[in-house]
């Protein structure tokens, strides 16, 4: 089976040990977690893990099965890129003088649709939200001029179709 990108969405109770439990499942099968984001979800007191992996569908399905089996996990889903709307964010810290010395930088900022978050005497910070390749392109464009710091977040995603979590939510509210 061919490897591809999968986005795994896990709805779970807030629990300190759960991240350890979930990451252990990937560790056991030597699957690298390419992106990880934990946040609250649309359901009150329920958190959502968004995990990105590059592997086969067969393995993804098995992993999702093992994740779902964890006591605190309410439901886990996996999707391919076509089925979701997804983004990542990145921050670039760059020396302020470059803004004046290197004309090209201004063009990069404009073309990349990024925002200047802050400017100080020594540095300014650019924020970019988008697809991984867009962020990579921006990174490559800025690199020759010198990037003081760079960080990119894990992927966050919502599905195009309805997440069949709503019925579970309804069940919860009855309780």
């Amino acid at each position: 089976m061919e490897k591809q990108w999968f986005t795994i969405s896990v709805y779970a109770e807030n629990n300190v040990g759960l991240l350890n439990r979930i990451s252990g499942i990937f560790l056991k099968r030597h699957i690298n977690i390419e992106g990880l984001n934990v946040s609250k979800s649309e359901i009150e007191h329920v958190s959502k893990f968004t995990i990105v992996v590059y592997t086969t569908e067969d393995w993804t399905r098995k992993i999702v099965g093992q994740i779902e089996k964890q006591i605190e996990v309410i439901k886990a889903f996996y999707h391919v890129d076509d089925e979701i709307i997804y983004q990542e964010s990145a921050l670039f810290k760059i020396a302020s003088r470059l803004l004046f010395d290197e004309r090209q930088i201004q063009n990069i900022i404009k073309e990349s649709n990024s925002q200047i978050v802050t400017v100080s005497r020594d540095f300014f910070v650019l924020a970019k939200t988008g697809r991984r390749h867009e962020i990579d392109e921006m990174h490559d464009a800025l690199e020759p001029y010198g990037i003081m710091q760079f960080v990119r977040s894990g992927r966050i995603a919502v599905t195009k179709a309805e997440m069949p979590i709503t019925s579970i939510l309804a069940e919860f509210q009855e309780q």
Partner: protein
Amino acid sequence: METLKAQKESKKKEKAIKITGAEAIIHCLLAEGVDLIYGYPGGAIMPVYDELYKFQDKLTHVLTRHEQGATHAAQGYARVSGKVGVAMATSGPGATNLVTGLADAQIDSTPVVCITGQVPRHLLGSDAFQETDIVGISTPVTKWNYQVTKASEIPEIMAKAFYIAKSGRPGPVLVDITKNAQFEELDFVYEKCTGVRSYKPVPEPDLKSIEAAAELINNAKKPYIVFGQGVILGHAEEELKALVEKAGIPAAWTILGLSALDTDHPLNVGMVGMHGNYGPNVLTNECDVLIAIGMRFDDRVTGNLDTYAKQAKVIHFEIDPAEINKNVKVDVAVLGNAKQTLDLLLPLVQPNEHKEWKAEFDKKYQIEYDEVIQKDINPTKQGLTMGEVVEQINVASQHKAVIVTDVGQHQMITCRYVKFKQSKSNITSGGLGTMGFALPAAIGAKMGAQEREVVAIIGDGGYQMTIQELGVIFQHNLAVKIVVLNNDHLGMVRQWQELFFESRYASTVMTNPDFVKIAEGYHIKSRRVAERGELKDAIEEMMASKEPYFLEVKVEKEDNVFPMIPSGASVSDIRLK
């Protein structure tokens, strides 16, 4: 709704008693019907031990001689009784010594609750004396675990621990309790846990899948059942038997499924897997419908998956959705508790007899009998065989004993030849293959089924891994019968070395102590047998004993267990020699 909740809360408060966390733990155990726990004290759990002292008329604590022994004893207890086994230990080394037992219980789905003491909350993370992150360490080997740092959490967490350990596919749960939480007071009220909203222990049976299964079974010419421990855990022994008989389907078992169906049942065709029977393995690749019930297609069962039952339609009765299509792609998955799903299946199944198909198993059995079984159980050569010892135990026990085995050749031989009439009788470490399991597990088994005879059959290697538990047998005068099959080798590893490493016996030859003297040191009646002529008498004497009894049988040093599927080979390529 809010007012209802508030009312409930105030009612709860009225019933509450003010006690310490340590005492609360005892009340939780009592409320869960626990009257026996295994453990070992130490600094971080001392407040609980102090309460155990006060409650000793209601709750028996058995001091195993090592914490690993406590977990295996709890497992043995759980496996014979179907109840939750409980083990307790202190923080640090006490807690880490539980890990092997937790891993064993996890892979063999055994309901166990382990309670560990932990350093006080304010010292967590400071590398305090005997602090170890047991919650982190035990995460991959527990069904659930939790660290309690406030006394007020105790009732809810303990209730949840028991509920999770025994519901659905059972497993081990660890509750780590900081020392301050044991000392602090709380308003104690106990309410049993009846559900956890994110956890669905038993999937709802889907009638469509059951109908599809029935159709496959009704149209099958060569249907074949392989059942595992799910039948025992799901209390589905009667339903399994009814299915086997009504549809006339030959049925084989995994070692954890052993004893779910009478070993002498005419349709019980034996054991699958690496050292299983010839027919059940070879015919896996000839059946047209394979009906897997409460088993998980472990690699020791399937051999090479690329050549496993490819010709067959596969039906999988399973409680754990994560097991479906994990190793073997199935055509019909029937999720649910086996008792419930088989019960729904039964009326849809047409009566049948598959005489010709069953005859193929008989034919294969004859081949195996002539090549292997005969020589194992009625040997004509000089040295004693493990098989003849098991055969003698069968005769003396009349198939009624609980048999506990360790790991290695003696385990495979015992599972191959032992006879059972009753479920929950075969206690062994299957999935993890934990040497050292048997002696402490036999202690738990005896205490969980006091009216039954319990015989532990152990290799000389594994025996020495937990030999200190003889102290428990002696102290509590537990009439466990211990049989050490002494081949002066780590037999199973030696066998692999002989077959696959050109007989280079790297570290598998042992110079053993005088086992009889050791048992005598614990004041346990004991005997050594090295001659065939004495065997029957020794086993009869052992079985007749009302007290613990130790029997060492000197067996042939370099016997091998056959049949055997070499690792990575197909079930069809099982070797008879």
